[in-house]
């Protein structure tokens, strides 16, 4: 097949998948969050259960004027949402939905993921600086400090997985989790990494991921009650929508990474290999939904931390723990 055609097809499919996933996540957050707060949430848009609320919101945002503050650094201000969006979309390029259903089969998939996901920090910092708003500036700086602090535990948590799997390819990691560990009464048992020694790094990964996502309890960069909306304060219309979609795409993206690294990705026990490409996306979706739900659930239960508390948590607890974790994993890897 023509390489350009293939690329275009992949892009379109990916865009549709990502946008749908984001919209669904937004809807679930609206609806589940409302019910957690003893409300009903969206009700009228689209008829039943207000399913079209995210679309209606999007249509509303599209109509709004694209404003920039008078003293804003316009080129940077305009570019920032694209950087964030790009980072969000980039994650999905390497996440395998099945053995062959993957945007790009990279041998260094994990490396690419970590690189592309930390790109959003740049976008956030750009947004915070260029808005010419003090709240935005503080928000942007908080985001930068936070992302730097949590990049390290995140990487260290992933390193543990890479050591155990022995590969940096995401498909390789999924395969490693489907390798038979032992046979029990004639049944070959394969377990995801979370059950085979990666529990600690899973938690560290999730905490760091939530911090990277700037979601409660680590949403200090946008902290509504402190910084109005942080780096998002000045954004309106389509640019705000891009940040917004980008955030939810990243939520899905990080959940997908966690599912792939720790929960066995598209694989499931007793799944015949021939079915993997067909059932894979559904299985991954299931795992991703569970993680996304937990992230939403946390958002609607907990308050936020303070920036310095978050920093001390990252540097004083998470990094040492993940270093010890790596050491332990490495020892086991060598020993067995």
């Amino acid at each position: 097949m023509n390489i350009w055609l293939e690329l275009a097809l992949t892009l379109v499919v990916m865009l549709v998948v990502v946008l749908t996933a984001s919209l669904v996540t937004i809807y679930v957050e609206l609806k589940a969050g409302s019910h957690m707060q003893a409300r009903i949430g969206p009700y009228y848009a689209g008829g039943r259960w207000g399913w079209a609320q995210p679309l209606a919101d999007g249509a509303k945002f599209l109509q709004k004027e694209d404003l920039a503050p008078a003293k804003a650094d316009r080129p940077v201000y305009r570019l920032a949402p694209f950087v964030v969006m790009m980072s969000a979309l980039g994650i999905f390029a390497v996440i395998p939905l099945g053995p062959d259903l993957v945007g790009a089969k990279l041998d260094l998939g994990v490396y690419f993921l970590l690189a592309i996901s930390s790109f959003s920090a740049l976008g956030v910092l750009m947004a915070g600086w260029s808005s010419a708003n003090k709240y935005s500036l503080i928000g942007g700086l908080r985001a930068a400090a936070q992302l730097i602090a949590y990049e390290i535990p995140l990487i260290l948590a992933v390193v543990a997985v890479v050591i155990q799997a022995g590969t940096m390819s995401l498909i390789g990691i999924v395969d490693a989790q489907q390798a038979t560990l032992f046979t029990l009464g004639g049944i070959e048992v394969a377990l995801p990494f979370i059950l085979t020694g990666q529990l600690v790094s899973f938690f560290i990964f999730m905490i760091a991921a939530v911090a990277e996502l700037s979601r409660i309890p680590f949403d200090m960069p946008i902290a509504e009650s402190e910084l109005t909306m942080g780096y998002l304060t000045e954004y309106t219309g389509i640019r705000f929508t891009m940040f917004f979609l980008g955030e939810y795409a990243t939520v899905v993206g990080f959940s997908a990474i966690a599912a792939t690294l720790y929960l066995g990705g598209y694989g499931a026990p007793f799944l015949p290999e021939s079915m993997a490409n067909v059932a894979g996306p559904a299985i991954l979706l299931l795992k991703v939904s569970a993680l996304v739900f937990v992230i939403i659930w946390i958002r609607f239960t907990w308050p936020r931390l303070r920036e310095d508390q978050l920093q001390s948590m990252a540097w004083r607890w998470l990094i040492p723990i993940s270093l010890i974790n790596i050491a332990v994993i490495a020892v086991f890897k060598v020993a067995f």
Partner: protein
Amino acid sequence: MTSRQLMHRSEVAVSVELETPGMTLNIGPQHPSTHGVLRLVAKISGERIHEIEPVIGYMHRGYEKLSEVRTYAQITALVNRIDWVAGFANEVPFILGVEKLVGVEAPERAQWIRLILTELARISSHLVFMCSFPLELGASTPLMHMLRDREHILELIEDVTGGRFHPNFNRVGGVKPAYGGGSKTKKQSMDLPAGFFKRTLKAMDLMDQTCEDIDTLVTGNELVRARTIGIGVIPAEKAIEYGMSGPNLRASGVAYDLRKVDNYLPYDQIDFDVVTRTGGDSFDRYLVRVGEIRESVKIIRQAVDIIPAGPLQAKVPRVLKVPEGQVYSRAENPKGEFGYYIVSEGGKMPYRLKIRSTSFSNLSILPWILVGQLIPDLVAIMGSLDFVLGDVDR
């Protein structure tokens, strides 16, 4: 102004660090955590506040001036708009003051009705605090849960008075008549509607559950503790100096509750405790309010048992002329001491009405307490002070 701020302990800590002061951050008047239209002009370095100047008055409605051209009955309608989350509690000290001037005393049943409604107003006000305080810290769910549960209280208040926020239920010498003074409806008293006590007791059971929910969602939450324990400590002598009252003062260890101290409404016939804490930090101010909800539930349960039958109105002349005199009348509002200094020169209207609103005094400590704090702590402290801008600006 600066000399007092320099004494603040955190100022010393700040000055040894590398300083980049000079950025002025304008917080408010349209800011999510200022509960309305409070404005704080802060000089910050990083996120630490060096100097802060609260600017109030965006909601100044001039009630003291307006009161000079209004009759006492009209002022009653006005004053329950001062602190609108506890409208009924604002009326009580005013009406008690006017009753002292006129020399009438409301019948016993009316007094008990006032007491029950005041306590209901206290619960509803504290529930609003339970909404806003976690919201400042970033938790949005307590807000919705507490608003849901407050509805039970507001329904009770509406049931009796016809208004949810602005009851305007007190009249000099008793409570409001139901329907006019016409020949047909003259006798229609505004007694409690049938089944009110049963509904009240049911609502109080729900409040017990609410308190447990608060404890689960907020008190027990480690993140809330990390954010509030030791933050914004107000020592007792400072609180007294700034005229802070109510739960804010009691959190600093001063057991000063006008319900116990002053002889107003039949609180002396009821067994309840004054909730105090000793830390004086944001978390203690929160805990005192949780405790007060529980105490109010206790008070209402007892009051429902005790309340006697009887008339609701004392004999008061039809056109109320208040004799010459000056009286200060205060009561324990949910937020603290709420008082009115009424100067009457005879006639239908007061010569001067000084409104001692609670939040005004409670907020006057802001320039002292906020210096040296971080912006995230600023919202935690302001949330824990529980103010209403209508009460600050009058």
